[in-house]
């Protein structure tokens, strides 16, 4: 399970670094690509920032039972406040992030690795996911809408997709 989460995140992070090297954020003094999994962050850093992608993993379902294939929901939050103080380009900057998200998600698959081992282990199958559905931030979402919309000075997006993967198993 954790291997699928980690593999998805690492795939998107590496792709973002290639698509837009300047989209970075600073966490605890370290500059990193501006995409994070919030459950992996210290609570003091989880507050949403404009200009970065925040991933949350959601429900897990059994997609096929004959050989366990799981589907795991993923929510991706991002927002823009524009640049230069006036914020008049916040829509354009959000559109840039829309494009980056679509770019990160294509191709919609990646190899699955166990990042908890050293060296990292190739698990012999892949993860694959649906095309993200990109909505406005819904009511009752895990993150308070006000935090994202911040009045009219911030525009936000809430993208959803589902990641599929086989549970690693050992039979030989």
């Amino acid at each position, binding site marked *: 399970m954790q291997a699928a989460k980690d593999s998805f995140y690492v795939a998107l992070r590496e792709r973002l670094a290639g698509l837009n090297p300047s989209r970075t954020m600073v966490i605890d003094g370290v500059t990193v690509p501006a995409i994070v999994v919030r459950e992996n962050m210290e609570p003091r850093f989880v507050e949403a920032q404009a200009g970065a992608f925040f991933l949350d993993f959601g429900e897990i379902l059994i997609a096929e039972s004959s*050989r366990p294939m799981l589907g795991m929901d993923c929510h991706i939050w991002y927002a823009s406040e524009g640049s230069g103080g006036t914020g008049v380009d916040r829509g354009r900057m959000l559109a840039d992030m829309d494009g980056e998200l679509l770019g990160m998600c294509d*191709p*919609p*698959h990646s*190899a*699955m690795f166990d990042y908890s081992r050293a060296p990292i282990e*190739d*698990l*012999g*199958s*892949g*993860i*694959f996911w649906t095309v993200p559905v990109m909505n406005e931030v819904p009511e009752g979402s895990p993150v308070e809408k006000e935090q994202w919309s911040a009045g009219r000075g911030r525009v936000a997006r809430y993208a959803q997709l589902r990641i*599929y*993967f*086989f*549970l*690693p*198993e*050992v*039979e*030989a």
Partner: protein
Amino acid sequence: MSRAGLRPISRQTRAYFAAVDRANGPTAIFDPSKDGGFQLDAPPSPWIDLGWIENFHRTTTSQIEGLNAGSAGAVVRQARHALGARVEFEFRDWGKLQMALAGGAEHMNVLASDPSANRAGSGGSALAAVPLLPGSTGTELLLGAGAVAGFRTGDLVACDVDYAQQVGYLGSGVAAAYVKNPADVRQDANYVRRVTFNVGRVAFTTSGSLVLAQALPGGPPLAGASIQKVTAFVDREGGAFLQQWSGLFVAEDESGGRVCFYYPILSPCTVRADWVKESLVEIQKPIGQMALHASFISLPTVDGNDAAVVLSYRSYFPASGSAVY
């Protein structure tokens, strides 16, 4: 050893085609020992990427029957006969090659014509061709300073030799038509350029050349070649020519191994009485995407490794780390 990688997962299929030498057979052999792991956006030469396709179906009509003998009438031998295979799918991209393959017959480049020229369903009498200078390549056409002024960025151009009243296959690099009698094509010097696959779009012009956005499918221009502007493409219901191409189809490997289907020779074939040529794939009413239906029969070739007569090859490249069986 993980068994998860034994299940290929795929949601779409990519199509690649390569020209067949009509005299000597396929020139593009998909060799799984060399070509298996290629990047789908960068196929090995001479395969041409024709994009993602939908509703890909492979069928076989080959029969394996038992031969009965003896008092019990039991099967004592088996025999394979009626070797046959077909492929059907839909192109979602429209282009010169996609139309030609879906149409199956001669595919016409509509050459720019003079406003006063005669009218014809595949284009009237063409404006004069512009000869290429020596040194032109598959991506850069040398014209000289004066002639290049007649072309602009974005123009489509057809590039090939003049028709010299010969009988046989026409078209540089790719057989595009077959002429039985020069009178059939009105001895038109432009006829080769009407059908050639050597068509490109001008990415930009230099002081004396046109630089193309994509390489000419038939390769560098032959000596004596000329170019003409193309305004559209036309295929026709009818015609005497049948396209022949090698086909390679790759199921995108999302998890597990990669599966490739290689057909040395595909020729157009429709087997249903009411074959639908194109359809509208609904996006949201009333918006739809036009899909080009294509259908082929596979022609036999001989595998040099064991002299077997074969129609197609299915290659499987196991996922790294997966079990073998």
